[in-house]
C-alpha cells in the first residue's frame, strides 16, 4: 500500500484504522489487525444523506470455540459507534481459516514484550500427515533462554500453551502455531 498522509486517506482506510484500534480481550497488547483476524472493512452505500455509511467488518476466528470473538464483536461495534458510525455489521468468515502466519511482525514483537512467546515456524497441519513431529525450542520471553519445557500444550486459552523456562524458572505462555 502506498504511503498516505492522514489528510489524503480514503474513508475506507479511516474505517480500517478505527477497526484496528480494537484489541483482543485476552491479549490486550494485540489489536485485531496485529493478530491478523481483521480481514476486511467495507463501507456500504449511504441511504440517508448526512449520516455515516453503514460498516461491514469481516473477521475470522482464531479457534472454533474461541470465546473472545463475542467480546471482539462488541468492541468493534462500540469503536465504530464512538466514531459516529451508527450501523455496524460484524461478519465472521471461517474460510480461509486463520493461521498464525497472518500475525504481523510488530504483533509478534509486542507479544514477546508482553511476556508471551510468539508462534515460531509455520503450521503444517494440512501439508504434512506424517507421524509425530519434533517440536522446536521455544524462546523464553523473559530471559531469552532456549532451555524451556512444555508443561501443557493446552493452556489458559485455546491459542496458548504453557511452558516453563528451565533457566529463569519462570512459567510463560506460548502462542501456538496454527
Amino acid at each position, binding site marked *: 500500500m502506498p504511503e498516505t498522509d492522514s489528510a489524503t486517506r480514503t474513508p475506507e482506510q479511516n474505517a480500517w484504522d478505527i477497526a484496528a484500534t480494537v484489541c483482543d480481550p485476552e491479549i490486550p497488547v494485540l489489536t485485531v489487525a496485529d493478530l491478523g483476524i481483521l480481514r476486511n472493512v467495507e463501507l456500504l452505500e449511504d441511504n440517508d444523506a448526512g449520516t455515516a455509511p*453503514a460498516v461491514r467488518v469481516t473477521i475470522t*476466528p482464531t*479457534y*472454533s*470455540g*474461541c470465546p473472545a*470473538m*463475542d467480546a*471482539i*464483536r*462488541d468492541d468493534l*461495534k*462500540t469503536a465504530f*459507534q464512538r466514531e459516529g458510525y*451508527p*450501523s*455496524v*455489521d*460484524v*461478519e*465472521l*468468515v*471461517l*474460510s*480461509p*481459516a*486463520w*493461521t498464525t502466519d497472518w500475525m504481523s511482525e510488530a504483533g509478534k514483537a509486542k507479544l514477546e514484550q508482553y511476556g508471551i512467546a510468539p508462534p515460531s515456524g509455520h*503450521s503444517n*497441519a*494440512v501439508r504434512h*500427515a506424517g*507421524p*509425530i*513431529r519434533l517440536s522446536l525450542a521455544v524462546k523464553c520471553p523473559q530471559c531469552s533462554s532456549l532451555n524451556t519445557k512444555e*508443561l*501443557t*500444550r*493446552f*493452556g*489458559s486459552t*485455546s491459542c496458548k500453551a*504453557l511452558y516453563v523456562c528451565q533457566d529463569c524458572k519462570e512459567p510463560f505462555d506460548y502462542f*501456538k502455531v*496454527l
Partner: protein
Amino acid sequence: MSTAPETEETKETKETEETAGHGDLSVGVKAASGSGEATASATRITPGNALRPEDIALAVRRGTAKPSEDVAEFALRLGDDALILAQRLGHWISRAPELEEDIALGNIALDQLGHARSFLSYAGGLDGRSEDDLAYFRREPEFRSVEIFEIPNGDFAVTIARQFVVSYYQYELYRRLTGSTDATLAGIAAKAVKEVDYHRDHSAQWVLRLALGTDESREKMIHGFKVIWPYVDELFRDDELTARLAGSGAAVEPSSLRADFDRLTGAVLAEAELEVPNVQPAPGGGRKGLHSEHLGYLLAEMQVLAREYPGASW
C-alpha cells in the same frame, strides 16, 4: 445476517445508553430481558450481540442456497459426533489426574463444541432450526452420532484411547472435507483440521507415555484400547448417504479414510509397543438413531436446563 435485526439492535443500544448510561453492560442486560428472538441461543449474552455459528453459517453461505438435504444430514452427523464428545470431555474438568489435563481436555472439549456449533447451525439451515433446537430439543433416536462418542469415559486411559481413535479419524475426515464441493463444509473442515491436529498430538503423547510408563499404566492403556476398539469400525462404515455425497464431491466415503487411519495410528501403536486389539466390532447403529443405553443419560444431563427453562440465557 440481514440488515433488519442490525438496525433494531443499534436502536436498542442507543436507547439503553440514553436511559441507563452504562454503556455495553447495560445493553446486554436490557436486550436479554427485552426481546425473545426465535433463534436465540442459550449461550449468548444478548440477541444479535454474540457471534453465533448461525451467523457463521449465514455469512459463509451468503448469496448461495441452503444446504441440500443430504449435506444437512451429513452435517448433523458430524455435529452430533462433536457435540457428544464435547459433553463427555467436559466431564473431566476437575477430575483429570493433573491440573494441566483438566485444562487440556477442557480445551479439546471447547474446540469440539465449536465444531459442533458450526455443523449444527449449518444442518439447521435446511429447515430453520437453531443449533440449540438441535442440541437440546431432539430426542435420543434423533441423534446421529456413532457409538464411540457416547460410551462412558471410563478411567483416564479409556478416555485417552477414545481420544486417540477419534482425533485420528476426525483429522483424516476433515483433511479430505477441506476439498468438499460444499463451500461451508469445506470452510468448517479447514478450520477444524488444524485444531484436531493438536488433539491428535495430545492423545498420541499420552498413549506413548502410558504404554511405555509403569506396568500399571501400561495395563490400563491396553485395557483402554480393548474397551474402545470394538467401536472403531462404525466410524468407517459407508451408507447410501455417504455414497451420494461422495458422488457429488461434497463428502468422502468413510471407508476411504481407513487405510490412512490404520497406517498413522499403527505407527504410534508400534512405537508404544502395543498391538491393535483383536476384538469383534460392535454392531453400532448411531447413524440410524440406534444408540447404546449410555446416550440417554448423557442427553438427560446435557438437556435438562434448556428443557426446564426454555429460552434461558446467561
